[in-house]
């Protein structure tokens, strides 16, 4: 079954300032969308607003999954509906290992016992095996399983660890916020191929990016250009190439 994430006429405010205006987007779980735009255009705000970060106030419009509004849901409930976000700046979690986090996450998302007095029945050995598999796929060694999440990780390692979590959770929709930043060209290749293997056109991808680099390895079905809080253009993958050649300024003048 194909799931659909719809964003309808969305307006978002932060501290009284309107930063997203009339955003419309439809993403199917077998599609890849890219959202590109200059710094400060509102790309990360859109990602966090969809996920329900309390800082972002939605003043108008709606976000729906399969026709049902999710705006009334807290962030964890949105995750349970199948949304995932890979943060631009993943925060350090001292004291929480990757294994502990993944275990808690899977408990909440996939193995929640119907009777709360019962213990969740997690296949822990399999989870550990899967973790090892995906860590390897992303070029991280096993020791990351027992390291505190994002503590002492390099920028690239943080982004890779986010993709490992996505692989474990297997969401319906993943918003990947500047996953390519902090990665060198080899890193981008590894991460891009891992993202493709993991999503397998079963997870709808929203790739938020500044540059075209990632999109050379993951060709999107649609490219949306976000400027000053609005989607100003939507086109095929070639739009990203054009933007790369000409730059945002040129694009702005043409509008």
């Amino acid at each position: 079954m194909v799931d659909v994430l719809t964003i309808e006429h969305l307006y978002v405010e932060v501290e009284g300032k309107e930063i997203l205006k009339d955003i419309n987007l439809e993403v199917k779980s077998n599609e890849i969308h890219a959202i590109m735009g200059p710094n400060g255009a509102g790309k990360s705000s859109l990602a966090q607003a969809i996920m329900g970060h309390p800082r972002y106030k939605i003043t108008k419009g709606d976000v729906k999954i399969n026709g049902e509004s999710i705006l009334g849901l807290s962030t964890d409930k949105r995750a349970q509906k199948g949304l995932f976000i890979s943060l631009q700046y993943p925060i350090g979690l001292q004291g929480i290992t990757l294994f502990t986090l993944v275990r808690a996450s899977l408990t909440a998302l996939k193995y929640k016992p119907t009777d709360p007095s019962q213990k969740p029945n997690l296949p822990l050995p399999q989870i550990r095996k899967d973790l090892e598999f995906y860590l390897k796929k992303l070029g991280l060694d096993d020791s990351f399983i027992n390291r505190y999440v994002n503590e002492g990780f390099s920028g690239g390692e943080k982004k890779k660890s986010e993709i490992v979590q996505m692989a474990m959770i297997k969401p319906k929709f993943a918003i990947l916020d500047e996953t390519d930043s902090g990665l060198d060209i080899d890193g981008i290749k590894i991460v891009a191929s891992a993202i493709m293997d993991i999503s397998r056109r079963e997870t709808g991808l929203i790739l938020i990016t500044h540059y075209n680099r990632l999109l050379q390895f993951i060709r999107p079905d649609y490219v949306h250009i976000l400027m000053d809080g609005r989607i100003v253009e939507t086109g095929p993958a070639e739009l990203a190439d054009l933007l790369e050649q000409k730059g945002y300024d040129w694009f702005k003048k043409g509008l």
Partner: protein
Amino acid sequence: MSLNFDSNILKEISYYTSEPSWLREERYRAWEIYNKLPIEISPLYVKHHDITKVNLEQARFELKTELNKSEEIDALLDQISSLPFISLKDGEVYKINIPQPLKEKGLEIHSIRDLLNDEDNAKKLLSLKSLKPEEDKFQAFNDAFFSSGFYISVPSGLILKLPLRIINFQSEEGRIKAIKNFINVGADSRITILEENYSLKEDLKQSLYSLNLNLNLGEAAEVEYILINDFNKQTNYFVNRRAACNKDARITWVILNFGTLTTRAKTDNAMNEQGVISNMNEIVVGDAQQVFDLTTYLSHNAPFTKGVSMTKGVLKDESRALFKGLIIIEENAKNADAYLAEHAMILNRGARADSIPGLEIKNNEVRATHSASVAQVDEEQIFYLMSRGLSEDEAKKFLTIAFFQPLIDQIPAELIKEEIANLIENKLENKKRSIKEKFIITEELKEVKTVSPEKLFETHYKYRK
């Protein structure tokens, strides 16, 4: 803190313990000191103390002649009959158990009342007392009013892998009790002490449990002292401890503060000779109206001593914590190495914590570092965890345990390590558990080891591989 009794009670206690007259004189002296001293002597802490919740107007001082048996306690103690233990009920010695093989090795546990009635024994016992009335108001209180306690003597060279247990049960409300304990650990011994404080029921009237612990470590002795403090929330627990350490001795504390209304604790690590290592680990989980006023001293009185003190607390509701740590490095304590950390996390408005680290350094060739913080739960961390499917409450609980995790990870106490996170979680969730569920069951005593002098070099930590 107002008391509804006066110095007349001193005479009664003295008759009750049948102690020598000089000890009675000491009590009067201590009572005078108690009345003169302010709650805090140190200028560092004059403004930082809190015993405001203590209300003893309905509490009474009582000297018991006989102790009622409790089936509940007996059933618990039956489970650890193969371990050495001493159990106290309402501050009175209830049961002492020394397995035969340990008795043969020379392990001794006595009620101090069996020693105080003899002139020589009383003298010997009091010679082990390192806590002086002049140092602290509530040490003076304890010196004036103590009527019970225990003396444990661990012979030299005894290695005990399983814990020596101390279990304090409280069954009566509205009581004032002063207990004085002595533990003397012989040279080259290695032991773990596990102390647990439980109340048999919830009370309505407040109590005062005053405790002084004089712990002496012989040369190269190693002691791991674990305390789980889970008295009910009408108990005021005033404790002073001193670990007086001789050459190359090593003291490790793991103190878990969950219960009581007010805990006022002062722990002094007196590193009196060179090579001593002391390691203090303290955890606080406070809720409701609880107050934790905790002071740790790292007293470097000799060269080449190493002291570490780490306190971490999480406070919710209207609970309050004061973390006071003081590194004292004396003039002769060249190459001393001290580290002090006090960190608190506040879970909601209304809860409060203060970290007050202090340094008194009289020698330049030393290393002393400290860190302190009071913070709230990070909203971005909560968002991150919620985006992974955890509810807000789960995320908070998760972050709280994570806050303690680095400390738990480095605690050497294998015996309790696995259990600490569970204990913290239970307290956070305010889980009501019976004492039977809380009581820690450890393995049975299988063998008793002692070190022969030839083997000392191999087992001493400096030469261990």
